[in-house]
């Protein structure tokens, strides 16, 4: 490739890149401006302006209460997420150990999979009351079901070639094959499933807090709705979104670090 067309290529790339960023930022700003615009025409009950959302929420609830709610919700989510994912992952691995074990558990898993976890919330409230334990268990249960399915799928999808190659090279003990071949090769898929599980965990937490809580972000949203504090509702939603986004970024960062050796296109 001669130098002139190479330079042109770089320039075209840069121009596209800048154009894209410009329009990206412009559309975000546009959204905010549209938000402002609509909020000026409708009553604050329907759509308070972006500024009003934050200022009024802060003045009505006070900084410490807001932070307390956020921390409560985060605690539940992370506790449930960690417990559920780890137990789910272990179960997933255990189930995929052996064809016969897999055949035994498969119908149970297929029956458990379509259950909407949100529908189970009233049952958990009946069993565990309105306290922390019930909510953490609910989120854990939801993550557990998802992780089992996801882990099982991931293990099934390991290319048989890898296993056969390992056996050709002398790996005879199943645990060794598991440790050195299967576990590393499923990590990308597991982390991918983890991102979905994280998003779901935030949803489950919101639902659990809507239905029976005395504290937390979801509780703040429900209380705001009862007092027709739209700004509180919107504030809670945005904070949920920011937290979910942050956790997602964290998982993606961990993904890049752990899976640096995988051959994948960059996300």
């Amino acid at each position, binding site marked *: 490739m001669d130098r002139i067309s190479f330079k042109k290529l770089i320039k075209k790339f840069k121009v596209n890149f800048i154009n894209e960023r410009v329009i990206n930022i412009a559309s975000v700003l546009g959204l905010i401006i549209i938000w402002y615009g609509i909020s000026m025409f409708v009553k604050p009950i329907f759509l308070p302006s972006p500024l009003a959302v934050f200022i009024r929420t802060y003045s009505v609830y006070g900084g410490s209460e807001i932070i307390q709610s956020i921390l409560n919700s985060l605690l539940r989510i992370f506790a449930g997420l960690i417990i559920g994912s780890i137990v789910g992952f272990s179960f997933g691995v255990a189930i995929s150990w052996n064809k016969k074990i897999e055949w035994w558990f498969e119908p*149970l898993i297929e029956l458990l999979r379509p259950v909407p976890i949100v529908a189970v919330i009233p049952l958990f409230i009946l069993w565990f009351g309105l306290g922390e334990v019930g909510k953490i268990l609910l989120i854990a249960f939801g993550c557990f079901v998802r992780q089992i399915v996801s882990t099982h799928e991931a293990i099934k999808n390991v290319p048989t070639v890898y296993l056969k190659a390992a056996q050709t090279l002398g790996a005879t003990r199943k645990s060794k094959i598991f440790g050195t071949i299967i576990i590393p090769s499923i990590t990308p898929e597991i982390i991918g499933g983890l991102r979905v599980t994280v998003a779901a965990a935030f949803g489950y937490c919101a639902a659990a807090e809507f239905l029976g809580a005395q504290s937390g972000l979801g509780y703040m949203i429900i209380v705001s709705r009862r007092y027709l504090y739209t700004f509180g509702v919107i504030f809670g939603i945005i904070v949920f979104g920011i937290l979910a986004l942050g956790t997602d970024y964290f998982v993606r960062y961990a993904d890049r670090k752990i899976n640096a050796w995988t051959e994948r296109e960059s996300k």
Partner: protein
Amino acid sequence: MKAKKYKFIPTLKQILGFSSITTAILLWYIISMASSPLFVPSPKEVFIDSYQLYKGIVGMSILSTLYRVIIGFTVGTILGAVAGIAMSWNKIIRWIMDPIVEFLRPLPAIALIPLFILWIGLGESSRLPVIIFASFVVVVVSTREAIKNVPNVYINAAKTLGASNKGLIFKTIIIPAITPGIIGGIKIAAAASFDLAAAAEFIGAQRGIGYIIINAKKFLYTNGIVFGIFLFSLLAMVTNLAIRYFDRRVNIWTEREKA
């Protein structure tokens, strides 16, 4: 020559599967006998007694919930697929919509339910927009991903063979290639729709399976709660099977291992 009649000889897989379900049910019976009906009702109580109690409204409730889910899910999916394809068709549309979609994506749809109730009231119509919204976001994202993942080889090959019109490439290469990916997104959207319908019905509906559950909970009638959960699962399972059947029919030419 007489045709041979085959006896039903179950495979080991079927035996194991059947016995695991039977064991689960037996365990359920045993646990229910050991604890009060408030905590773990026996299977008989859940299915037979609850059905007796709710016989009148079961049909209407199922239809009510199903109506919400199916309409919301269908509308959201179609809008999402169209938006996803539009975003890949045109750079400008993509640049405008990308941040919007990325902004809407992390919002847990369940958290939006109170907002919609505030806007539209506690009636029927406040539940649909949430389901539409969630399905839309899920399908847009999966459609975009699927389109991005179409191997460039396909497109280049098509161009080599003479396809120059972008519309042609889209119709003949990209759309068929993304069907598996979109169906995957549809499955996720369906599951999310049921979750959302359950949550929306819990927060104050007058009809639907969620109403049965909340009603039962008020009276501490655990049978009813479990019965409602069972109904939900049944609906979700049927929907999942329908989507999978659809999936096989449409994607019969795809080279994939059995899911």
